[in-house]
């Protein structure tokens, strides 16, 4: 029985490479950053619904008045309490009086995508005639899954119609919610029902139900002289926002969008780098190993791709062909392997001239055998380094493209979040919480890979070890 061959790369076992990597300060920092990044990516994949990316934003909501809120922790410094509001769209009002009864019917939609649960739901009535008279309010909510919830009737006896806070029947989880919405028994009876309206039960777990909620509010005032005008009513929907990063112009919790960006931006970098590495190794090895005309042609092709102005072309093509993010990734990778291929080629050329290759040749080894047993094993460890080095470029270029609202505007990548921030005037209005975190996260992921590369450098390049 043949002995199992020990797996060695660059004369080192994977364990030795790992120890070399983690022994340096940069390696330790890189490992910590990497762990944080992967943890957040996994958390995002597990915690966010699978269709979150597709739901996160659509242009039809853009006519809404901005509703921004800074992060909750900023209250500690400013002393101001901000009430983050949720986006209300398609606000329609009909009101008047008939037969001595004043009425108002308000329909509006709430975009609950990208938001965290609410505690409070307020309706503000401005006209004293309305709340001094005996008034009754009903609220009907139609969920994205088609289920309808009737809230009310409640007496309107103060300036606020508090749905959810006032101890009315609509605010309590009772048998109705338990049965109609399949809430698990773990939900305590008597707790506020409002958050559970925005959840659905999947596999016995409460999962936020994202989408458009349709609200219909009906108010009757039983007073002979009351009509309700549009001015008399306003709807305030307060979200209990997680608050780490504040909200954007739609009242969306930015933290969720940023969280959703982790796996996407990571995937963007990894896929680009993977394609680049495969192409670079293939072309570099073939060019250097076979030499002659093949080498000449491949070198010319490599030079061509090194010189190609990739970024303007990427922009132009994204506009012309309406590319999505995967098209852009493939194009970017397909034109940016040149430099890496040149390095691989130089490496193989150097290996080819070593004595052990000559000895193998003299011993009658075939070219394929030498390629498989000598050259590839010596080039392969470098692929890891090459891969890591190519990741930040992909992330940075594609977030720049996304910042132009090109290539994948439907996904919550950090570049897209910044594009929206720019589009909705965050720069000139001081909504810094919408601008700073996405850029910091892009930098974080890019820098993580740069640090990993820095930590790997002394391992793959032994000359640096003795510096």
């Amino acid at each position, binding site marked *: 029985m043949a002995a199992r061959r020990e797996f060695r790369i660059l004369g080192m076992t994977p364990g030795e490479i790992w120890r070399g990597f983690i022994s340096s300060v940069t390696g330790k920092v890189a490992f910590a950053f990497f762990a944080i990044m992967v943890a957040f990516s996994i958390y995002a994949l597990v915690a966010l619904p699978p269709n979150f990316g597709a739901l996160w934003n659509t242009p039809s909501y853009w006519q809404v008045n901005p509703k921004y809120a800074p992060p909750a922790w900023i209250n500690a410094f400013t002393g101001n309490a901000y009430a983050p509001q949720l986006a209300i769209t398609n606000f329609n009002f009909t009101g008047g009086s008939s037969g001595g009864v004043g009425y108002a019917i308000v329909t509006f939609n709430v975009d609950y995508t990208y938001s965290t649960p609410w505690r409070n739901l307020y309706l503000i009535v401005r006209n004293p005639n309305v709340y001094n008279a005996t008034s009754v309010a009903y609220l009907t909510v139609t969920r994205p899954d088609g289920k309808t919830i009737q809230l009310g009737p409640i007496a309107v006896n103060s300036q606020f119609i508090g749905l959810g806070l006032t101890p009315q029947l609509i605010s309590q989880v009772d048998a109705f919610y338990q049965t109609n919405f399949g809430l698990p028994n773990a939900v305590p009876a008597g707790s506020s029902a409002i958050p559970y309206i925005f959840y659905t039960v999947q596999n016995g777990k409460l999962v936020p139900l994202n989408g458009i909620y349709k609200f219909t509010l009906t108010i009757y005032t039983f007073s002979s002289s009351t009509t309700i005008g549009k001015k008399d009513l306003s709807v305030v929907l307060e979200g209990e926002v997680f608050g780490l990063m504040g909200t954007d112009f739609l009242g969306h919790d930015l933290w969720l969008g940023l969280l959703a960006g982790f796996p996407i931006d990571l995937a963007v970098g990894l896929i680009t780098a993977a394609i680049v590495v495969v192409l670079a190794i293939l072309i570099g090895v073939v060019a250097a190993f076979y030499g002659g005309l093949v080498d000449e042609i491949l070198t010319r092709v490599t030079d061509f791709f090194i010189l*190609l102005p990739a970024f303007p072309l990427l922009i132009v093509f994204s506009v012309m062909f309406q590319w999505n993010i995967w098209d852009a990734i493939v194009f970017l990778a397909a034109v940016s392997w040149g430099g890496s291929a040149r390095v691989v080629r130089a490496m193989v050329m150097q290996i080819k001239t070593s004595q052990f290759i000559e000895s193998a040749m003299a011993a009658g080894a075939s070219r394929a055998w030498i390629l498989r047993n000598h050259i590839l094993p010596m080039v392969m460890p470098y692929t890891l380094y090459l891969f890591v080095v190519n990741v930040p470029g992909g992330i940075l270029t594609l977030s720049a493209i996304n910042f132009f609202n090109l290539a994948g505007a439907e996904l919550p990548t950090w570049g897209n979040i910044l594009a929206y921030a720019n589009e909705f005037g965050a720069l000139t209005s001081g909504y810094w919480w919408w601008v700073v975190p996405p850029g910091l996260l892009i930098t974080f992921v890019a820098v993580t890979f740069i640090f990993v590369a820095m930590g790997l450098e002394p391992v793959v390049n032994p000359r640096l070890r003795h510096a």
Partner: protein
Amino acid sequence: MGLFRTLGIRAANLVVLLFVVLFVISYALSGPAAKLLETQIQLEARALVSQLAKSGHYTPAQIQELYNTLVDQLTKAYGLDKPMYIRVFYIMYNMLIFNWGYSYFPDIYGIASGRVADIITSALPGTVLLDTFGILLSAFIGIQIGLRSALRYGSKRDRAVMYYGAVSNGLPQWWVGILLLLVFSFYLQTVKSPIYFPSGGILSPQYYSMWFTSPLSVLTNPNALADLLWHFALPLATVLIVNVGGWAYFARTVTLNTAQEDFVTFAKIKGLPDGRITSRYILRPAAPAIMTSILLSLPFIIFGGFIITEAVFRWWGLGYVYNLAIFAPTPDMPVIVALTYASTLLYIALVLVLEVLYIVLDPRIRSE
């Protein structure tokens, strides 16, 4: 002889590159973009016809006929009646003979003549000022920092430079620009600071015509110059913050690699003074690599990385024009094609200069 052959092959490669880029762009623009152009023609014809209808008395049939004739003529004028491959080569030919034509949307650039060549030349000084000057300045500062840092390898300052370089390589330049705008333009204005920076633009509006007609006269007029510098501060700061680190890191790596060569060790053993070792034995061999990198990155940076930075600052340079052309009501094809062609041309010219310089600087290649 071998030298000339190498240079010849490089030059041929570059010319092929130019043609391929030109072909690809022309193809992209004559294919899908033609549909956009058709709607544009219809809009244009409708606008003209409605103007005519207002001023004269026409029957509906006459108006329809006028409209049809106009659409036909415009289609012919834009060459849309020809098959696609003819259009591709027509665009390519016109680019090659520098017949760059007229922009579809001259209004958005504010250039009265609407000629693409005028738009590009008006934007060129801004690009030279921000991109070329910015890159050269940051390269100069960064290389100084990198060299000093490499000569004290392992010190705390060296470590700091290394990490700064790594972080700045991962910073999106445009985002840094946004941050600076947020702090030094928006925030300083909200707190009513006496000194704050403009939120964008290359000059205050009253100097714009001056800049478009003769940029050099802006430099001689003290008021205009002060205004230009005031607008220039934030973009330049952005460029420096992001690029100095990258250059420092690069120069440090190159210098460290050279410092480990045997001939440096030998020079040390010989007991040569440190200054001489640094200048003759480390910096001189490292020069070609640094030089190559600067020259090669210049065009790359101008037509790549700066497109978005210029858009963020609304800095009147080629990158901003690119942005305007792409996000015009329909992509402004003549401008896009001309910009891409001009950038590739410039790029190729610089690379050729670089090849020659490389030979001058690197004796190893000369002796080949």
